[in-house]
């Protein structure tokens, strides 16, 4: 380890904005004179809204000046704003709660309502079993019918109820293939064009991985998956696929071959975004707990947009990951709480994790000659224990020293769990990007935790005792039930299933290993291509920017019900 100079501290602008008129390096400040919750425009807005609701319904509601601490409202210190990292947008903390942020809701909607279904099995059934001709023309006709049916319209039956297109306008199906000739014959409106969306080298690898197969990227209506659950997605899509095949290929609705098409659409040809969870977690497929970290890193498209900045690409995964896994999955699905936002946002606000991570990039270049702006399999460093220890020690010490040198930075990340997650993430990302090995990244994470705990005699909440003080022993294990390579781990991996401030970062560490090598995908080329589609409501290449848009109320989500509700 050896400290390196880094003149540009990315968090300084945020600190100066947040603590205006104050010396951000001072150890002292004034408290108890901010006017409590009324210092925050958003809290004032909430109080006003609550008053109107109370008048309307006659039941008391939000009353922070009476209910908080028996009459001592929060805001005895400064209630800070936050910059969503690398967006330049400052928001109130409340605006980053998923309930208050339409972009965050849509992000999860767009994942939960997606399945990928292969077409090869269905085409084989049509051709070999039924002797029907499958051509680009028939495929285009099928896709036209499917885009009619998938949102909830009838194609075969008489006298059917249907869904209002204005409520399901986010529902569509496109296809992709590695076969350029076939792709050329598909109507552009139905094609995810890999060549156009990805950098040339990534497109080549992706197309080669997909080969001559063709896949449907299916997004059922947000309103359906919200009303039902993630397990609905494959069922809804399979039903419409079956009906559309019947219509497009003039099949008999009851003939036995339809069962083959259904089986392919529901089971054999389906790629779910999340796997089924065990009974004690009680969730179906396509729910957050079943999303493997490698697959999640393919959902996030930072690597497509920033192929020569694996740090930036990884940080986008962090932001998206902590929002989904901490704020939504652990925070609400699993715990039923509302407070997890405060943990999670630390990793994607005020450019703090960004600064620590880029310090790691500079250190990689300075000491090991790894230039993160030119990622390739040949550039990464061999992952030895000594190198993981060295990278982590330096990045972790630097992060601790930044918190110490800037007391307002420590005040920004006022909880130990926030700091622990952020410091370990910077260490893990440095190790995974620099070595191209996700398990080396996870190993760096755990050394960071031990160093943090010993240096400051504290870590996070109780859960960190479980997960982070035993993680050294399982981060390089691939024995069943004790370990997996990072790509195959997920939120339900033993020990990972309960702790906020970890899972999004782990996903990024996994992604970073591939971004550092310049890989085109981490786990599944199919997923990587599917979420590159610009027709999706949410732009997965810039999740943090999208969350910022949601925070300032500039993000238009899908699945709104205003068409069928009284005008307000």
């Amino acid at each position: 380890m050896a400290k390196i100079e880094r003149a540009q501290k990315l968090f300084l602008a945020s600190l100066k904005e947040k603590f205006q008129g104050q010396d951000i390096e001072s150890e002292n400040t004034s408290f108890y004179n901010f006017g409590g919750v009324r210092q925050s425009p958003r809290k004032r807005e909430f109080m006003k809204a609550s008053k109107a609701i109370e008048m309307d319904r006659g039941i008391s509601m939000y009353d922070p000046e009476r209910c908080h601490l028996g009459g001592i409202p929060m805001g005895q210190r400064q209630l800070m704003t936050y910059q969503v990292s690398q967006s330049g947008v400052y928001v109130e903390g409340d605006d980053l709660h998923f309930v208050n942020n339409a972009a965050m809701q849509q992000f999860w909607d767009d994942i939960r309502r997606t399945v990928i279904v292969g077409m090869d099995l269905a085409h084989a059934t049509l051709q070999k079993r039924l002797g029907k001709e499958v051509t680009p023309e028939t495929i285009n006709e099928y896709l036209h019918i499917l885009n009619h049916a998938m949102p909830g319209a009838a194609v075969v039956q008489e006298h059917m109820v249907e869904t209002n297109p204005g409520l399901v306008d986010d529902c569509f199906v496109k296809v992709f293939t590695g076969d350029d000739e076939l792709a050329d014959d598909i109507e552009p409106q139905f094609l995810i064009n890999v060549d156009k969306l990805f950098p040339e080298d990534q497109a080549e690898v992706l197309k080669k991985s997909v080969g001559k197969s063709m896949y449907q990227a299916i997004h059922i209506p947000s309103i359906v998956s919200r009303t039902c659950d993630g397990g609905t997605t494959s069922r809804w899509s399979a039903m419409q696929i079956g009906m559309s095949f019947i219509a497009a290929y003039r099949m008999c609705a009851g003939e036995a071959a339809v069962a083959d098409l259904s089986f392919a659409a529901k089971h054999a040809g389906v790629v779910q975004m999340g796997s089924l969870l065990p009974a004690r977690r009680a969730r179906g497929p396509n729910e957050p707990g079943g999303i493997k970290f490698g697959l999640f890193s393919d959902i996030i498209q930072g690597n497509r947009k920033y192929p020569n900045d694996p740090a930036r690409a990884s940080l986008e995964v962090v932001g998206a990951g902590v929002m989904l896994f901490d704020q939504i999955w652990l925070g609400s699905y699993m715990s039923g709480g509302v407070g997890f936002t405060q943990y999670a946002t630390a990793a994607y606000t005020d450019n703090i994790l960004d600064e620590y991570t880029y310090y790691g990039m500079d250190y990689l270049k300075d000491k090991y000659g790894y230039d993160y702006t030119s990622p390739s399999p040949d550039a990464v460093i061999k992952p030895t224990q000594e190198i993981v220890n060295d990278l982590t020690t330096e990045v972790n010490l630097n992060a601790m020293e930044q918190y110490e040198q800037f007391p307002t930075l420590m005040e920004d990340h006022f909880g130990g769990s926030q700091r622990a997650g952020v410091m370990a993430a910077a260490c893990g990302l440095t190790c995974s990007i620099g070595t191209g090995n996700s398990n080396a990244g996870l190993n760096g994470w755990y050394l960071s935790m031990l160093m943090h705990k010993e240096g400051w005699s504290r870590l996070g909440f109780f859960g960190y005792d479980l997960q982070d003080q035993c993680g050294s022993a399982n981060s390089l294990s691939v024995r069943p039930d004790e370990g997996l390579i990072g790509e195959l781990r997920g939120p339900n991996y033993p020990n990972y299933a309960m702790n906020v401030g970890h899972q999004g970062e782990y996903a990024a560490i996994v992604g970073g290993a591939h971004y550092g090598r310049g890989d085109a995908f981490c786990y599944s080329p199919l997923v990587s291509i599917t979420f590159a589609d610009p027709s999706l409501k949410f732009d997965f290449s810039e999740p943090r920017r999208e969350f910022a848009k949601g925070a300032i109320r500039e993000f238009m989500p899908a699945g709104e019900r205003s068409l069928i509700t009284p005008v307000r």
Partner: protein
Amino acid sequence: MAYTPQYGPGTSVVAENRRRQMNPDVQLEKIRDVTDEDIVLILGHRAPGSAYPTAHPPLAEQQEPDCPIRKLVKPTEGAKAGDRVRYIQFADSMFNAPSQPYQRTYAEMYRFRAIDPGTLSGRQIVECRERDLEQYSKLLLETEMFDPALDSCRGATVHGHSLRLAEDGMMFDALQRCVLGDDGIVKYVKNQIGEPLDRAVSVGKPMDEGWLKAHSTIFHSLVGTSYRDDSEYIEYVQRIHSLRTKYGFMPKEE
């Protein structure tokens, strides 16, 4: 072979202070007097002078089962009497408070019996039988493990450990349970859970910067000792991590 605790690595003053607090053979320096009644007031579990509420009859009055473990383990006075289990919880400023969460847990495990500590980033709780707790609390409040400005007893709404200090040098407390008086003495005006006290309880003057730096158990590059400078400590952590990685939880040298 008899086990000889080493209490931790490091060549810095922080490392040495940590070992001192942990080692029960070291007599911790008594800095201030806090009366038994004042301890009871700060804890806020019972009124001074009132009987200890019990969770069960005294052990002597119970029909104890024939259990080899019970024969081996001598009960504490609180356990003998059947006291309920209560707590003291501290918040410790990162600006050189003399004790810190894990440090408290380690020291308490070496120095006290029959305790259940819990360690977080902003607070550390120790639970035990009530009369044992009052005895332990006295040590925790009267000795070099405590500073009136930078350590404080907080049952809930604990936050303050990582914030800047107030202009008078006190750690932030949303409930302002203790205040620095014009006489330079810190007084608790609320008990640790935040209920107002009938009378203020004095816990003495804040220690000065020099003393705090010399007695700190946290590394801090701005106000104290830099972690980076204690290379023995860092190498020790790296070694533990490497051995755990290679050999699971039974580390031994190759």
